[in-house]
């Protein structure tokens, strides 16, 4: 906390380390409402390597949501560069960003965001639909992803027929189905009771153990402690970057 300057979050890079999944350099994001300017991110440097499990923490207003949007390619930075799996996404148009999200990122949201009119496996296959994957292949992969999250017997249930924990597991299956480089979970346990929270966090642990790169945005300390590394954001800057408490 002594140093108010930007803290470089990258770890010492060995020569044989693979390309980082995420590499932010001097990323700024400014919102403009009429004449009022608000700088949500004020120069963030962050590097996340393949296979890492990172929790991003920060109080509301800290800029962690903005950071998550930029990491998820849902929004683009005003300044600075963002390389996702080696690819500079800074000057991509909307269509290319959609393609990047489709291929490289799997989202898990706090409100699950499942489509209520579709059965569970139809929800899971959605990213493949936009990825132009053939219908027969989609079904197989969606079923495999559902089995992976332990819901192989709930394929044809509508989201309304599933518990909150099950719905979030369907959402995780949907995030996994496209084999993305990055799993981006935004407060995934925010709407769950403690049993379901344990359930979903255990699932994330398993996925991490299998080598998935996971970025988890949360404001709950105990959730963050599950991750191998905690990045704390305050006032639009990365303040601390430390190994998790495990």
């Amino acid at each position, binding site marked *: 906390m002594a140093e108010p300057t930007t803290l470089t979050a990258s770890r010492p890079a060995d020569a044989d380390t693979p390309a980082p999944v995420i590499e932010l350099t001097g990323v700024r994001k400014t919102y403009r409402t009429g004449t009022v300017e608000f700088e949500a991110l004020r120069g963030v440097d962050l590097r996340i390597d393949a296979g890492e499990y990172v929790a991003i923490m920060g109080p509301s207003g800290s800029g962690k949501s903005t950071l998550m*949007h930029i990491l*998820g390619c*849902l*929004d683009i930075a005003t300044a600075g560069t963002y390389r996702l799996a080696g690819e500079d996404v800074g000057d991509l148009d*909307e*269509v290319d960003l*959609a*393609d990047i*999200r*489709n*291929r490289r990122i799997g*989202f898990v*949201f706090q409100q699950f*965001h499942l*489509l209520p*009119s*579709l059965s569970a496996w139809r929800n899971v296959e*959605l*990213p493949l*639909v*936009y*990825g*132009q994957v053939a219908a027969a292949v989609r079904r197989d992969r969606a079923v495999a992803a559902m089995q992976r999250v332990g819901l192989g017997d709930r394929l044809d249930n509508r989201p309304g027929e599933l518990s909150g924990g099950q719905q979030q597991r369907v959402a995780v299956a*949907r995030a996994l189905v496209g084999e993305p480089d990055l799993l981006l979970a935004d407060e995934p346990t925010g709407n769950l009771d403690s049993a379901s929270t344990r359930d979903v966090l255990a699932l994330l642990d398993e996925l991490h153990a299998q080598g998935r790169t996971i970025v988890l945005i949360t404001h709950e300390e105990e959730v963050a402690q599950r991750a191998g590394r905690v990045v704390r954001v305050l006032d639009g800057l990365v303040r601390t970057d430390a190994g998790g408490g495990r």
Partner: protein
Amino acid sequence: MTWTETLRTGWSAIRTHVMRSTLTVLGILIGIAAVILTVGLGLGTQKDVSDQISALGSNLLIVRPGSSTDSSGMRGGFGTGTTLTRADAEALASDVNAPDVAGVAAEKSSGASVEAGDTNWTTQVVGTTTSWLDVRGREVASGEFFTAADEESGAAVVVLGPETATELFGTTRVVGQTVTVDGTDLQVVGVLAAAGASGDSDLDDVAVVPMSTAADTLFGGTDRNAVSTIYLQAESSDALGAAYQEAQQTLLALHGITDADSADFTINSQDALVSTATAVYRTLTVLLTGIAALSLLVGGIGVMNIMLVSVTERTREIGLRKALGAPPWAIRRQFLVEAGVLGLGGGVLGAVLGIVGARVLPGLLDTSVVVSGAAVAGSIVVALAIGLVFGVYPATRAARLAPIDALRAE
């Protein structure tokens, strides 16, 4: 995302809101059915009118007294209405004057009361010549037509139309019976065959007498030589133009008129009559179709309204689909397809309603309704186009939503 995917998604979105979708479709449906029916009614009426005129005979030119332009009034000469005479008819029958005219039948007609015993019936009494049968394309069903000798002598004979005979006697087997017109007894010598299948009763409700009988005995009046109409039959349809010219020249010469514009008679072909008679109906059809098309426009605005509601309601879905990798064009296409399906549904159901209406209406209104395949296909295409056109704005709005804003929407 393939077209089938898009269609399936659109269809399931429509099915999710059955009531809303039904009402939207109803707006288009009513408009399409109205257009099909008004166009059908207009075409049907035009067909009825042209059928009636065709039933007058074939390759006909019709000469009437007085001059007229297409739509305004008549210009009468001195002694209006008596400018055509039996002498004109005789001149036109001459091969020298009018070689392309095959037959001439002058008519002197008037409405009159015909009595048979206790029954009387008001009908059209037509005085004419023996050529009338050929020129008007009629046949005698029983008995025979009056002869040249009858005409020469002004014989008291009559040929009845089948309907007239039935009204007077209750049967068409009336040859040898006597009817009375204006105090004159006439012997029925024949009964006409019904005029074709067009079922136009005017042609079957008629009493035909020799010209001389009509002029001298029945009608009398100041100018016994005046005739009300001269029917000319051309040698063939190709000769109609030549026959027209010859008839005009002959009559102008006979009447001592040099300028064809100031002629005291009018020659019409059947085509001209048809187009004059149908012009009014055509205007009316266009007007009514315009009103029906307006209702389609209102239906289209309904589609737009519902699609905007749908976009607003599904903002989060749009945001999610975008987050999962849907490019803007896929979102736009999805909502366009949905609007197109609503429009197409309205079009197809409206066409069905229109066709059913076209079956039912003739029974209620006594007019023909002509539903052409082109009108039906056209309406369906228009309905689809309306759905798509009015879907563009909502679909574009959906496509432009920013994914983060859309995901946050409540």
